Structure formats: structure tokens, C-alpha cells
């Protein structure tokens, strides 16, 4: 069942992760697995482009929370871009918009990520 598919690509030192579909308790292992693989590969600077993300439940936010410390301890970060109104409401309600840097589009996020101060 194609509830979720995840595209991962490299954009000059930043790894762009684009989940398409629904992240819920059923699909979250795939999402978590994709992020864990990046961390194992020491790709610590990650942009979550949410353009094709219809929906994320707390299970998905938990997966991000579970990795953010490791990522930041290694000089990286998890950035967010392209949040739809509904997905933004979820992140915002749980205070994630305080904890994560949120960008309108991928370009802005990539520019900010490669600015000084961000290890790649």
C-alpha cells in the first residue's frame, strides 16, 4: 500500500528528504528508517521538504524528535520547508516551529543551511 514513499537526494551538502503521502503509526517505521540511515551515513544536515506530505501524526513528529539531538551534537540540523497549512498546524501546535527552523521553500532552506555557522 503506497501510503508513504520517501525520496532522498543530495543538494550540495544538504540531504533533502521528501516524504510523499501519510506519516502515521503504520508508516512511521519507514520514515524513521530513512532518517536513521542518513545519520548512520553521517549525513547530519537534513532538510525535510514537506511539499508532498499530506499528513503527519505525532508518531512522525516523535521520529524527528528521536534524532534531533544526535544530529545537532554532530554539527548538523533538521530543517523543514514547504509545509502545507494543515501540516504546519500540527508542527506549530506541538511547539516544533520553535524547535526547528521552518522555511517557505526549499531554496530558502538550502541557502540558510549553507550559510556560515552550519557545518555540512
Amino acid at each position, binding site marked *: *500500500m503506497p501510503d508513504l514513499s520517501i525520496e532522498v537526494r543530495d543538494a550540495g551538502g544538504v540531504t533533502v528528504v521528501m516524504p510523499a503521502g501519510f506519516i502515521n503509526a503504520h508508516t512511521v517505521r519507514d520514515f524513521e528508517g530513512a532518517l536513521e540511515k542518513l545519520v548512520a551515513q553521517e549525513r547530519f544536515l537534513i532538510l525535510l521538504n514537506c511539499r508532498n506530505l499530506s499528513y503527519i*501524526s*505525532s508518531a512522525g513528529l516523535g521520529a524527528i524528535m528521536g534524532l534531533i539531538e544526535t544530529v545537532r551534537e554532530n554539527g548538523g540540523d533538521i530543517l523543514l520547508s514547504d509545509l502545507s497549512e494543515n501540516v504546519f498546524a500540527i508542527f506549530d501546535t506541538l511547539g516544533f516551529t520553535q524547535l526547528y527552523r521552518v522555511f517557505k521553500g526549499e531554496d530558502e532552506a538550502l541557502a540558510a543551511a549553507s550559510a556560515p555557522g552550519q557545518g555540512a
Partner: protein
Amino acid sequence: MALASIAAAGRAEFQLVIPSQTKYLNLVTGLAKRAALVAGLDDAAAAKVSIAVDEAVTNVILHAYKGEADHLVELQLDFTPQALEVHIFHTGQGIREDQVILPDPKEYVTHPRKGGLGLLLMSRFMDEVRFREAAGRNECCLIKKIS
């Protein structure tokens, strides 16, 4: 027979029964969203109802039924002029109101950890979240007012 017993009771709600498996979550949340639109909520509010239902049903599957696949989860949707009510029934382990601990988002973001966000989302996205026991079953009731 399910149908007969409901008809006999004169109830006319919308009712859904699914096996306790996360693969059906998407069906349930899709249905909840459409139901919310039928109830007259706008798209943003309907999306919130659908997330809250996801969280509640996920908790029933993972916590109340401990991930066991062979139980049933029943949803009843009541459309009233004032609100959409979603009642979620199960026969697994219940949770009492006093066990509901909502993390403080401010505190949470400074001490990141996995989990514990579901109940918070439910309470933020709905106008009322109630847990109770009735007729040998446990119920989680989610209410969204129609403004």
C-alpha cells in the same frame, strides 16, 4: 446482528468497526475528515479532527490492545447541529482521565524525547476529549464544535 440491534435501539449514527491494525488508520482518518466536512467544518478544522482521530485510534491499537492485531475498534460518529462527536470504543486496557498527562510544549521542546505527543494533539485539536468506561467497554470521546 449488528444492524438489527442498532436499528432496534433507534440510533442513527454513523458507525465503523475495524480490526486493531494500523494499516486501517488511513481509512479511518480519511473517513473522519470527510465526516467533518459533512458536519460543516472547514478544511483546516476537518484536518484537525482527522489527526485527533488518528491519535486516538493509534493509542487504542498500540496501548489499549498492546499492538495485538485481532481485536476490534468501533467508531461512532454523531452529527448534532452544534458539534461532531466521535466515540471510539474498545475492550482493551482503558486510560482514566487522571492518567492523561499532557506535556507542556514549552518544556517539551527544551527536553526533546520521543512520544507523549498524541494526547496533546488530541486535546489541542478538539474542543473536548473524554475517557470513560461504559457497559464493559472503554470509550474515548472527541468533540469538535461547529462554529
